[in-house]
């Protein structure tokens, strides 16, 4: 009987054991390894402690700053996405004819594979591509440009493609929350003769505030940690590193150049920035709970 009780005490730990074994192998050890190895360097097959040398080398390379700057520029997509999603969601919230259909269609890009999206857009945006032939067709020949190939346009073009893919998530997220707002709030505002914009500002926004916070922080994390695929497929960081981001820089240093330890130093930098966002995310999440 006693041993049975003892067994019972351990059962929950058996249930979570597989999870922890896998997470330790796949995530925890790699993170610790990256942090430690970022202070080492390999010379003639020997691992030598070099202190902050890898970081020093990383910071002397202007590529790091270019990549950092581009990630920060990508953060600018977040307010645009937030405002656009809110606007579209509030249009759909009024249950205009066909709103379910619109909602379904707007969500589609979000589930598509980034390689598919990236390849299709690289054909659309080519100099001899469709976008330009449409522009020429309607008489705007001057606007026809090499969208992904020109140094000034490549980054904004990639950003637009990322937003095209992400917009649906925000719309559906905000719409779901708006639907749970008490209708009577709007009804009494109608009685008071409030305009659409007043209702949006004084009812919709405050009622969806917590979800907006979530959305902003999640999207910031995405713009930092999950944009590798877009860059890999569409521009490979080019032209002239104009679309380089931290993730791609790490990949390039490691698998393109074989500078594994420097790649790991840059990984730690990325990890530090990500941690700040993750901590904010956790705080926002707890607050809600």
């Amino acid at each position: 009987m006693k041993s049975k009780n003892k067994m019972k005490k351990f059962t929950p730990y058996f249930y979570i054991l597989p999870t922890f074994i896998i997470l330790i192998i796949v995530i925890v050890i790699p993170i610790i390894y990256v942090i430690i190895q970022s202070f080492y360097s390999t010379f003639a097959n020997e691992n030598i402690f070099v202190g902050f040398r890898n970081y020093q080398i990383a910071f002397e390379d202007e590529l790091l700053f270019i990549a950092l700057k581009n990630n920060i520029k990508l953060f600018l997509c977040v307010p645009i996405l937030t405002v656009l999603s809110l606007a579209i969601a509030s249009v759909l919230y009024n249950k205009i004819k066909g709103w379910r259909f619109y909602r379904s269609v707007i969500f589609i890009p979000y589930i598509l594979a980034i390689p598919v999206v990236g390849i299709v857009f690289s054909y659309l945006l080519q100099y001899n591509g469709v976008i330009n032939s449409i522009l020429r067709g309607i008489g705007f020949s001057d606007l026809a440009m090499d969208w992904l190939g020109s140094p000034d346009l490549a980054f904004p073009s990639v950003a637009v493609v990322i937003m095209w893919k992400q917009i649906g998530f925000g719309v559906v997220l905000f719409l779901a929350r708006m639907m749970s707002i008490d209708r009577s709030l709007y009804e009494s505002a109608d009685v008071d003769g409030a305009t659409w914009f007043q209702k949006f500002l004084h009812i919709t926004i405050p009622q969806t505030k917590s979800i907006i916070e979530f959305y902003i922080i999640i999207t910031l994390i995405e713009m930092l940690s999950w944009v590798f695929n877009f860059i890999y497929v569409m521009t490979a960081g080019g032209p002239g590193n104009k679309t380089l981001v931290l993730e791609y820089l790490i990949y390039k240093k490691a698998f393109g150049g074989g500078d594994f330890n420097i790649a790991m130093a840059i990984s730690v930098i990325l990890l530090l920035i990500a941690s700040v966002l993750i901590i904010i995310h956790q705080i926002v999440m707890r607050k809600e709970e």
Partner: protein
Amino acid sequence: MKRKRRGMIPQLLMILLVIVIIFPLYFMTINSFKTHEEYVSNMIGIPHTFTVQNYIEAFQGKPFGQWFMNSMILTVAAVLITGIIALLAGYAFAKMKFRGSRALFNMIVPLMSVPPVVMIIPQFRIIKIFGLVNTRVSVILIYVGIMLPMTIYLMRNFMKTVPDSLLDAAKIDGCSKRKALTSIMVPLTVPALITSSLVNVVWVWNELLISLVFLQNEDLRTLMVGITLFKGRFTLNIPVIMAGLVIATVPIIIIYIFAQKYLVEGMLAGSVKE
């Protein structure tokens, strides 16, 4: 009159938006049925001579079918394993009282936002030690690890909504905890399992970075890596590329058509506490 105009403007805006969303998909699909010659002269219009030759070509002599199968195998295996492991952990975190439960759960949740690229080099070295370079097992293991935090989070939150009284009733009937898990929790958690698995299926199917790095062997390549290379190799025959993209997209669209509610719900719940 005023009312009517107010209804018109949102409709026009939404129709415009739908065109912007659909156009790239239309472009991809329509051109996959054209000959290359027709593509060059007619990029936007519907094909004059409808051909499925591009699909035949995509499969013929090229390892396209193999890539498709590889993606299937990885997706099914990784999603199933994740589901089972997350179900156990989710149950423990939601329904069992044990020391450190809260702290352990709180340690798992933030792991879902760690950038995958950061872990690639050490993962590669660990896998080398195990002698698993260029094997499906290695990639499945990494996929499971990356998907677990979000899946456990979903499972646990869902199981929390199942009232304890149901479980207590089962216990009085003399069920052991394991029996309680199978006879009561499993039927009740099937929706959570479906929801999180659908999200996971879409994620694994679309994943590029890990399969790119860990499966360099041509025979093991996934569809996403395949089409990315495909693009470089077939730049002269764009309709064939488009056919490849359509094939890669169809499974996801089928899931979306038949299980939209679950998939969307899972994607929202995975990132946000409801």
